[in-house]
C-alpha cells in the first residue's frame, strides 16, 4: 500500500488521473507489471487491471447501485441484454465478502456519502482490478468506517493487490501505508518510509511549515444567548421526520459542535435554521422569533452561513469573485445602494477579503471556478464574516482544504468567537470538532442523542457515540 501525500493542488489527483488514463501525460513513462503502457482512455487502464476511486464521486444519482457498478462492464445474456441476475448476484457476493452492506437495487441518490464511497469501492472490485487507486477515500468517513475500510484494504493487499492511497489525514497514512511519496507543485519532493517519520515531519515535508491543530484556547463563552432552537422538526417529502425535536442554545462567544455521521439530519437542520426548508418548532435569534422569517431576513438579521457544499450552495462558479462577494449580502452595504448594485463598493470590499483572508487569486474579476477549492473556501469564510454576523453556521468549514488554509480558517473562527460570535459547527473531522467546540452534541437519525464534553472525549469514543454503538453497549 503506497500513499501519496501533498497539499491541495499539489497534483495528486492529476497524477492519478494520468495513471487511470483520464488525462494524458506530456512526457514520461508508465509501466504496469514491468510492461510499458500508454493509456488513451480509462478503458485501457481498466483493461490492465487498474481501478480508481475518485476524490469526487463518479456516480449517476438517478441510476441504481447496480447500474452504476456494472456500467461499462455489463454481464450479458444473448449478446445484448444485460444479465441483471448475474450482476446482482456478483454485487451481493462482493458486498458480503468485504462487508460493504450494499443493496444493489437502491437508487444512488438515496444513499448517504458513506454508502456512496463503498459503492465506488465496489465498482473497482467488481472490475477485478489488481491495482487500486483511492483518492481521498476517507474524507467523509467516521473513524469506525475508516477502520473497517482499512481492514478491507489490508485484506486486499494480502490477496496480492496493489493500492495507491491519497489522504490529507496523515496519521491514517502513517498507520496503513507501506511507503509514502510526498509531492509538491507537481514533483516528488520526498519518498519516505512511514516507520521513519512522524505526522509533523510529514506535514512539514508537504508544506514546509508547522502542522496546525485546532485549539480553542481560553473559553470566551458569555451568558447572552445568541440563538435558541426549540423542538425543531423537519419532514422530508411530507412524511419522514429527518430532524426530530432538536433543541439547543448557543451563547455569544460559544462554539457548539454537532457530531454525527453524514446523512443524520445535519444538512436539514442547517437548512431549517437558514429558512431554506419548512420546519416546525421555534428558532429565536436574540429576542426575535425568526421561525417565520425568510432566508433573506434571517441573513439580514445577522446569520452567516458557510455551506457544506460550496459549489452548490456557496458560490456562483461562473461569476467573478466580486459578484460572489455580493451573494447572500445583496441587500446590504457595501454591495448595494437602495435597489442598485454598488459595483465600486462591492469590488473594494472583495479586495479587502482577498487580502485579509489570503485568497490566492490573480484578481477579483476571475470567475470563482478558476480558484482552487481551498481559496474558494477562504473567500466564502471572508464573505460570511463580513457584515458582522451574530451567529454563524459553519458546515464542514475546512473540508478538502489543505493544512495551511485550514489553519487560517480556524484562526478566523477563533477570532470571531472571541469577538462574541455564536457558532454552530458541523464537521466530519472529529479533531476539528473536539478542538474548536465549547460544547458538543451528537446527532443520530435526526435526534440529539448525547451531549459530550469536548475536553475529555477522544475521536474514537465520539465516533462510537455517533453510530449509536457506544451508548447501546
Amino acid at each position: 500500500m503506497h500513499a501519496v501525500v501533498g497539499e491541495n493542488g499539489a497534483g495528486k489527483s492529476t497524477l492519478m488521473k494520468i495513471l487511470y488514463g483520464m488525462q494524458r501525460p506530456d512526457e514520461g513513462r508508465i509501466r504496469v507489471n514491468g510492461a510499458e503502457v500508454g493509456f488513451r482512455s480509462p478503458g485501457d487502464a481498466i483493461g490492465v487491471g487498474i481501478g480508481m476511486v475518485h476524490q469526487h464521486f463518479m456516480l449517476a444519482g438517478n441510476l441504481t447501485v447496480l447500474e452504476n457498478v456494472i456500467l461499462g462492464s455489463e454481464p450479458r445474456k444473448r449478446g445484448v441484454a444485460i444479465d441483471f441476475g448475474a450482476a446482482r448476484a456478483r454485487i451481493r457476493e462482493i458486498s458480503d465478502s468485504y462487508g460493504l452492506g450494499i443493496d444493489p437495487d437502491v437508487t444512488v441518490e438515496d444513499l448517504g456519502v458513506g454508502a456512496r464511497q463503498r459503492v465506488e469501492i465496489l465498482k473497482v472490485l467488481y472490475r477485478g482490478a489488481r491495482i487500486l487507486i483511492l483518492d481521498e477515500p476517507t474524507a467523509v468517513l467516521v473513524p469506525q468506517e475508516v477502520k473497517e475500510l482499512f481492514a478491507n484494504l489490508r485484506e486486499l493487499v494480502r490477496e496480492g493487490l496493489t493500492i495507491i492511497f491519497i489522504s490529507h489525514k496523515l496519521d491514517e497514512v502513517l498507520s496503513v501505508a507501506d511507503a509514502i511519496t510526498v509531492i509538491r507543485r507537481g514533483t516528488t519532493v520526498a519518498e519516505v518510509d512511514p516507520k521513519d517519520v512522524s505526522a509533523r515531519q510529514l506535514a512539514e515535508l508537504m508544506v514546509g511549515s508547522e502542522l496546525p491543530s485546532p485549539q480553542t484556547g481560553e473559553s470566551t463563552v458569555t451568558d447572552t444567548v445568541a440563538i435558541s432552537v426549540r423542538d425543531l422538526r423537519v419532514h422530508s417529502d411530507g412524511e419522514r421526520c429527518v430532524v426530530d425535536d432538536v433543541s439547543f442554545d448557543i451563547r455569544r462567544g460559544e462554539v457548539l459542535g454537532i457530531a454525527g455521521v453524514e446523512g443524520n439530519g445535519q444538512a436539514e437542520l442547517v437548512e431549517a435554521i437558514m429558512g431554506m426548508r419548512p420546519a416546525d418548532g421555534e428558532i429565536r435569534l436574540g429576542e426575535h422569533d425568526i421561525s417565520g422569517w425568510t432566508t433573506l431576513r434571517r441573513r439580514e438579521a445577522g446569520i452567516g452561513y458557510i455551506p457544506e457544499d460550496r459549489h452548490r450552495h456557496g458560490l456562483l462558479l461562473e461569476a467573478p469573485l466580486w459578484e460572489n462577494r455580493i451573494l447572500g449580502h445583496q441587500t446590504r452595504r457595501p454591495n448595494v445602494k437602495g435597489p442598485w448594485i454598488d459595483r465600486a463598493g462591492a469590488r473594494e470590499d472583495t479586495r479587502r477579503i482577498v487580502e485579509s483572508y489570503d485568497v490566492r487569486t490573480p484578481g477579483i474579476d476571475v470567475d470563482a471556478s478558476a480558484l482552487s477549492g481551498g481559496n474558494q473556501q477562504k473567500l466564502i469564510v471572508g464573505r460570511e464574516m463580513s457584515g458582522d454576523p451574530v451567529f454563524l453556521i459553519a458546515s464542514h468549514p475546512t473540508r478538502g482544504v489543505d493544512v495551511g488554509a485550514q489553519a487560517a480558517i480556524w484562526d478566523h473562527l477563533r477570532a470571531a468567537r472571541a469577538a462574541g460570535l455564536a457558532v454552530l459547527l458541523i464537521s466530519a473531522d472529529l479533531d476539528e470538532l473536539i478542538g474548536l467546540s465549547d460544547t458538543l452534541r451528537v446527532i443520530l437519525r435526526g435526534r440529539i442523542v448525547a451531549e459530550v464534553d469536548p475536553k475529555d472525549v477522544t475521536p474514537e469514543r465520539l465516533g462510537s457515540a455517533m453510530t449509536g454503538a457506544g451508548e447501546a453497549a
Partner: protein
Amino acid sequence: MSAKESTFADRLLGRVSPAGLLSLVAPVTAIVFAALVTMVILGLIGAPPVDTLVAMGEYAVRPRSIVLTLNAATYFYLSALAVAIGFKMNLFNIGVDGQYRLAALTAAAVGGAVALPAPLHVALIIFVAVLVGAGWAAIAGLLKVRRGVSEVISTIMLNAIATALGSWLLNKERLAVEVAGSNNIGTKPIPASGQVPGLAIVSGTQTKVFGLILLSIAMGVLFHVVINRTRFGFDLRATGRSEPAAVASGVNVKRMILVSMILSGAVAGLVGMPQLLGSSYSYSLDFPTGLGFTGIAIALLGRNHPVGIAFGALLWAFLNTSAGILQLKKISPDIVNIMQGVIVLSVIVAYELVHRYQVAAEQRRVSRQMANTPAEEGTPA
C-alpha cells in the same frame, strides 16, 4: 461539477472579459465563416455566389431597405429581449408568440374603441399590451410555481390556446369590425391620436422608421441596467446560474420565477406595438405571426446580451428583407431560410471555438500568475 451549475445562457455567453482584441475575434470569425458557408451553399444550388452576395450587399444599403431592416429589427429585438429575460433565469419562454399576439389584439381593440389625446392614447394602448402579455405569461409562471408544470409544455400549449382565444375575439360579434369589400377582418382602426408617427431618419426614401424604435432601444438599455445594475437583476442572474446558491443567499426562487415570467410576458406584449402603432393601426388576419420563435433564435444568436441581440436582430431583419431581391434575381427565396440556419449555426460554432481558446488562455494566465506569486519552482506551462 462546474458545468453542472452553469446556465446554458452563461456557457453561451462565455463570461469572457471584453477587454482586448480577442473579443472582436469571435464575431469577425463568425461572420467570415458564415459568409464562406453561405457561398458554398449558393454555389451548390447553382447561383453565382459572389454576385449574389454583392447584390444582397448593394440592396442592403439602399435607403428603403435600411428602413425596412430597421423596422423589422425593431420588433425582432423586443421579441428576443422577452425571450432573453427568461433565459437569464433558465426559463424557456416559448410562449412569447402567443403573448404578443393576444396583447396586440386586445391593445388594438382598446385603442380603436377609445378617443384620448395623443400621448395618453398611445400610453393606454401600450399599457394594455403590456398588461395582457404579462397576464398571459403569468399563467405559465403560476402553473410552474404552484403546480410544477414545465414552462416548456405550458407555453407551447398556451400559444395554441391564445390562437383560439384570439380567433374567438376577432369576430364581428366581439372585437372585430368588417372592412367593406375585404376578405380581411380586423379590429377597428386606431385613430390618429393613438398612432406613433414614423421617423424620417434615413434620407433618400419616403418610408419612415417606426417611431417605436426608440422604445426598443430604451428597452435594451433598461434590460441592461436592470439585469446588471440592480439588486433584482443580481438575484435573477444568481438564480439562473445556480438555483441552490441563490436559495441559500436568500433569494425567493418561486417569486423570481413568477416575476421574471411576468416581465418576459410584459416585454412580449410590446412586440406587436411598433407594427400596430406604426403601420397597421389595426389587428387583422395578416398581422405578423411567429415573431416569438424568431426571438428565440435571435436571443441565442445575440447571447442574451442587449448589444449582441441588437446585432442578431439587424442581421435577421436584413436577411428577411433580402429575400425580395433574391427572388427578383430568380434565386429561390428558400435560400434565405437555409442561409439563416447556416449563419446561426456557423456563428455559434465560431463563437464556441473562439470562446474555448479564450478560456484556455485565461486559465493559462491564471495559473501563470498563481505560479509566480509565491516564488518557488514554477509549474511547466
